[in-house]
């Protein structure tokens, strides 16, 4: 019934979810397709949990309903778990391997979630775990982790790789272009083995 391909990008405020959403949106413009989206600004950007909704071919509202997202791109594993209820049956989660423990967990002495626990909780989903930090380092800049993730996700998103690459080239600062293109490619290769 749904006519749009719905992507949820989740992470921690400051990790670059907004750039990721811009890359997807710009690629839709390149392919001349309608697109809608919504994102978190304001207070949550201060290290809180953030989400960007992107609806490729979307003609209506910006929000994706829980249980209907086609894919979740998570920049942090705990955030992948938090938003996993958004995924439709048979949908896919592409997640960064990294898990940043919320500071409040330490401050309040709550049980610290571990990688293994979270991976266990995600085991019911089609999961693709990416070492974004390692690949970004290989690309030449730790700041390209979000682009690594976009590269990995590009294996599954119904947008042409050329459009996404062109979109990345338009949106990242010229000085960082080389590292970002490399990051995209490394991510893409990593995503192909999922």
């Amino acid at each position, binding site marked *: 019934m749904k006519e749009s391909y719905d992507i949820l990008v989740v992470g921690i405020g400051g990790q670059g979810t907004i750039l990721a959403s811009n890359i997807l949106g710009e690629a839709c413009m390149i392919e001349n397709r309608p697109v809608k989206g919504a994102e978190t600004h304001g207070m949550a950007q201060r290290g809180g949990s953030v989400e960007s909704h992107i609806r490729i071919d979307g003609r209506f*509202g910006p929000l994706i309903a829980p249980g209907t997202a086609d894919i979740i791109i998570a920049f942090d594993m705990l955030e992948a778990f938090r938003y996993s209820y958004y995924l439709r049956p048979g949908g896919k989660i592409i997640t960064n391997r990294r898990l940043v423990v919320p500071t409040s967990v330490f401050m309040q002495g709550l049980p610290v979630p571990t990688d293994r626990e979270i991976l266990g909780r995600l085991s019911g989903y089609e999961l693709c775990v990416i070492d974004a930090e390692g690949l970004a380092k290989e690309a030449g800049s730790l700041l390209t982790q979000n682009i690594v993730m976009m590269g990995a996700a590009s294996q599954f998103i119904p947008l042409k790789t050329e459009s996404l690459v062109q979109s990345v080239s338009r949106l990242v600062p010229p000085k960082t272009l080389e590292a970002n293109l490399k990051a995209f490619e490394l991510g893409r290769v990593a995503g192909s083995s999922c």
Partner: protein
Amino acid sequence: MERRYLLGNEAIAHACLESPVDFICGYPGTPSSEVVDILRMQPERNFYIEWSVNEKVALENALGAAWCGIRALCTMKHVGLNVAADPLMTSSYTGVTGGLVIMSADDPFAHSSQNEQDSRMYAKFAKVPCFDPGSIQEAHDMVRDAFLFSEDIGLPVLFRPTTRICHSKGDVTLGDLRVSGRTGQFNRDPAQYVVIPAHTRVLHKKLNGKQASIKERLVELGYNKAEVRGRDAVIASGIAVSYVSEIIPHSTSFAKIGAYPIDEAWLKEFVSRHERVLVIEELSPFVEEEVLQVAGTIPVFGKKSGNAPYEGELSPAAVGRIMKSAGFATNYDFPVANYPPDAPPRPPILCAGCMHRAAFYAIKKVFREGIFPSDIGCYTLGLQLGGVDTTICMGASITVASGIAHSGEKRDVVCTIGDSTFLHTGIQGLMNAVYSNAAITVVILDNRITAMTGHQPNPSTGITACGVPVPPVSLEAICRSCGVLYVETVDPYNLTLMVNALKEAKARPGVKVVIARHPCVISARRAGISRRPYDVDSEKCTACGTCVRFGCPAIEMGGEKAVITDGCSGCSLCAQICPSGAITPGVRK
């Protein structure tokens, strides 16, 4: 015509350039801030633009400009309109000659706000038209039309997007940029602009006389439109229109409301052709009440019937539930999917190295039993550090503190307020506290920027909205001129000095002010300032948890010992408080 993927606020800003607008002002507030931020960053500016010190000041500025025949835009968040309510209520009497659009961005679900008030009520209260966009494209088109409409009817127009318009994105068709060439000229007309009783009575009558034609004109403009397709009808407004569009069957009639006041005759005609009507809108039952007025015996479903919520924001799934519960057909059934209850929350947190954390730490150390009224800004997050006992609205830290101190409460009252908030509406409270001889300590958290809303400059920053250097206002001089005898400025990164200043304040009578001054780490980083990060010597670390409880997001408990991550911005506070001296400057990465 160009199609681009834009943030709602970018589309709104672009519409202002197409209009084109001549005068822009506002006070930052989520979700409205990007409009002025985008316009002030334009490489070529054929308009005047400022960040004003508060919303009342902004609206009066814009009104003055519009009285000179030029087009003016004034932006704020919904609660900012409370501050600007005074000029708003009478600006409809005086009217305008140049187009005046007041953007008041509502925040259903209070994503970044202290309440969920509905700005449409203000439009009705002030008797000015209100535009309520249902999509980004519509927001763009409405802004362009709103200036013309304002000029046509000679009234300010309230433009009320919500968070899901301002901070949504989509493909938008844009028009061409234009240059106006208008310059302001004031034509003296006391009967219009001097609201003495004799004039205002006449103006009120004139304003009421305009209402009928406004309603008709809004239907003609096409922002209230309806399609009769069956016996059931859904009437939706604002962003709810988008959600309903996604799931409404072709056999259900659909009315889209985008502008107020609604023409009753038009509405009645539509409603009367149906057996049942469902109204879907966020926040107040604003449209619903109008529908109830004209529905007669036709059953109306919505908030008052218990089918739709009065609070929070709507979503596609919520709209689906409302339609189902009222017995209206939908063409899509949303699955039930729930948030995992055991996911540890990740609330927003003060940045690593934020001066506010250091200041709160010192305050809590000196005033263990204190009461801590606070205010609105990043530092409201000091709640997590036990440093915030109250917040209500901008500027209300000093005033609430005075009230508590005069109530007979015996404990020390120490309030915190940011530089921008102090300049917004804090000064009057300080003056009043001195005048009424309150015994309070005021800590001005001065990071030289309006940080929370995206780092806008303010009079303490020393640059204008366009980056032109100006003399920064002296907070010290303001406080002294209010009659404060103890005004001490310290860098809160130096814990000893900060603690000493607070102890000194504690020992003195009356109103004391400590100005804790250090640039916001984010604006400092943007300006290219970097400090050496710190490291934990795991040999010396006794895992006492002191630094972890300090709450810096760059400090983690890595197994048994504390570790500092690459998020460290080198404020040195954790090193100053570590009882074992285990934290020292590390190597610059």
